């Protein structure tokens, strides 16, 4: 009996020793990686997250139709705040979109009345892509649009848009909450804009183009291209982002450019600050997609956008990439073009800020121009009414702020007119 008691006490003490040891090691440690680090000095690894579709195109314009009038954001902070407030109703509306039917122009314009939200993009997008970006399936939505309106009518919340493929206005019912939309629009009830069709002074613009009437002052930026070629070295972290091993790559200078070659992978750091990556054979930078995902356009976009953001951060560059165009050829090679946005406004340039070619879930070509931007003053943007007056005689234009480079290389916020140019196939 005594022996058994001793054995039991021994077992209990051994178990409690293990428990106390575990508690002692994990006290204040939040994760398994942190525990490994404490015990073995192994550095914690970053948690890998699965790619999820997310919006790759930034909104060009946003307008809330409130009981007092139209409200547009006057700064990038306010735009983000309004987009965040609208996101729940927008997801619900786009996710529950029903059967679309054709409507007249007059019926469409009548929907631009409180409570309603107008969302415009800089590029033509398929409705299917907008659905995948809010987490719903893309099947059966072939419409292509550059803008949409979420509006409440007698029967509930509807979405309306001009279908670029069918060349007609369309409207579809949704299951979104009308009360939420009304509450949202009431919360921003300080009008500062009009729609073009509401003011004869904006006859040169698209009828449903929202126009900000208040003056906006925005930052002027100076641009510093990345000086990798001049410094003679691309940072190791950036090389690793391009899947180039800095210890194995051959490095040489060619016509003022720095060239890194490892196997079939070539990275060229140009004298003007651009980075060009090419890969031959079956190699290339993996986007982390499984075999079944390589044809999923929304995941391709997200993988590419995440890669660009990471490379940009490693290069110490600024700005946000926004989708301009995506196309796939008969060989299954997808080419994606991105614009660069500063404070939510596109930087006007002769060519896209980034061009990426993807085949089989791997990037085979990537060109980007990572630049550093520094605030160099402020500029009041030309009032919309004055800009519109200079466009008399034109038709169907959009009016929005873009960063335009001047002769001194500064980026100046400028009200620019534009027609529909880009698209997503």
């Amino acid at each position, binding site marked *: 009996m005594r022996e058994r008691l*001793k054995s039991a006490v021994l077992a209990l003490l051994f178990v*409690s020793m293990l428990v106390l040891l575990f508690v002692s090691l994990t006290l204040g440690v939040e994760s398994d990686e942190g525990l490994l680090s404490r015990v073995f000095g192994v550095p914690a690894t970053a948690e890998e997250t699965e790619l999820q579709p997310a919006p790759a195109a930034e909104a060009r314009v946003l307008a809330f139709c409130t009981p007092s009038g139209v409200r547009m954001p006057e700064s990038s902070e306010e735009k983000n705040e309004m987009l965040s407030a609208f996101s729940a109703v927008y997801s619900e509306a*786009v996710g529950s979109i029903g059967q679309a039917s054709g409507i007249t122009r007059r019926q469409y314009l009548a929907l631009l009345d409180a409570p309603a939200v107008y969302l415009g993009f800089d590029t033509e997008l398929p409705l299917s892509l907008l659905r995948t970006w809010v987490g719903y399936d893309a099947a059966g939505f072939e419409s292509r649009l550059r803008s949409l309106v979420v509006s409440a009518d007698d029967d509930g919340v509807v979405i309306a848009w001009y279908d670029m493929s069918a060349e007609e206005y369309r409207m579809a019912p949704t*299951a979104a909450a009308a009360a939420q939309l009304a509450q949202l629009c009431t919360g921003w009830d300080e009008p500062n804009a009009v729609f073009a069709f509401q003011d004869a002074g904006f006859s040169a613009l698209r009828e449903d183009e929202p126009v900000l009437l208040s003056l906006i002052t925005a930052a002027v930026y100076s641009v510093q291209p990345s000086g990798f070629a001049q410094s003679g070295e691309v940072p190791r972290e950036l090389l690793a982002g391009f899947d180039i091993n800095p210890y194995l790559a051959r490095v040489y200078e060619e016509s003022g450019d720095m060239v890194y070659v490892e196997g079939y992978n070539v990275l060229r750091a140009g004298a003007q600050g651009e980075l060009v990556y090419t890969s031959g054979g079956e190699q290339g930078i993996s986007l982390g997609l499984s075999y079944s995902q390589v044809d999923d356009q929304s995941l391709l976009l997200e993988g590419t956008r995440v890669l660009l953001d990471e490379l940009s951060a490693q290069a110490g560059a600024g700005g946000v990439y926004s989708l301009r165009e995506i196309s796939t050829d008969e060989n299954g090679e997808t080419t994606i073009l991105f614009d660069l946005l500063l404070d939510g406004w596109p930087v006007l340039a002769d060519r896209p800020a980034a061009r990426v070619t993807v085949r089989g879930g791997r990037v085979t070509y990537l060109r980007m121009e990572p630049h550093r931007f520094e605030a160099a003053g402020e500029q009041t943007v030309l009032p919309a009414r004055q800009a519109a007056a200079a466009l008399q005689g034109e038709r169907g234009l959009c009016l929005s702020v873009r960063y335009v480079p001047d002769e001194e290389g500064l980026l100046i916020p400028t009200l620019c007119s534009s027609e529909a140019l880009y698209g997503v196939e």
Partner: protein
Amino acid sequence: MEWNKVKSMLIALLLVVNLLLALNIQTLISSQRANEQESLGLALSLLEKAGAQFDSQQFWDMPRSTAVLLGERSTEREAQIAGALLGEASLNEAGGGVSIYTSAAGSVVFRSGGLFEAELNDGTNPADLLEHIVQTVQVRGMGYEISGDEEAVSAQLLLDGWMVAGAVLTCRATEEGAAASGRWYFGGEPVSEGAGVSRAEMVVALTRIAYERPLNILNVQLVYAQEQLRSGVRLSPAWRIELENEQIFLNGSTGQEISVE
């Protein structure tokens, strides 16, 4: 050596080891607490130097640690509450995260982010409807506070005794029964996604704001802010700072100023 004596020696050895481990744990806990208190004290002195006016005891009374919680949306629980309110009901998945249950007794609508609407035409009174809903979906750690009168009653969702901002369910009388609307939590028991930042870090975040504008802090309170996710909600701790003419919210996991409905 007899096995009996070996056991005795092992017992004595394990007793000593366990005692040392227990003392080590006690020392670690005391040390962490002392460090945390010292950090908070230093942070409060920084806040004072930034010109903010406050009662420091309010900050000492804030919880030492908070957690960010993740709650998965549960279609089973939604079906359960719909069944309890409507009896046998048909379900229409309208898309966009909208689930609509209907029967002869009325309708119940669940939306993403915990938004909820119900209308019953069976003569139910608002107070009974509200109690029925909040008790059916209650999970461990969550409570509620009821307020109102005969015309309309409201329940405020609480998490570990702290208010969940914006999570209010209101029931009103209708001609044929009662209607409920608002935002609540209908998911399973939330799980921890990570810890919030320390009290000291929150005070340092407040200090940055104090350098931008004068702060006369009247009250500090912990609340939980609901963030709508595709699959459920994230419940993040936040500090509600009551000032003279406004209130500001600081996210408890980033220290950033946020807006809370």
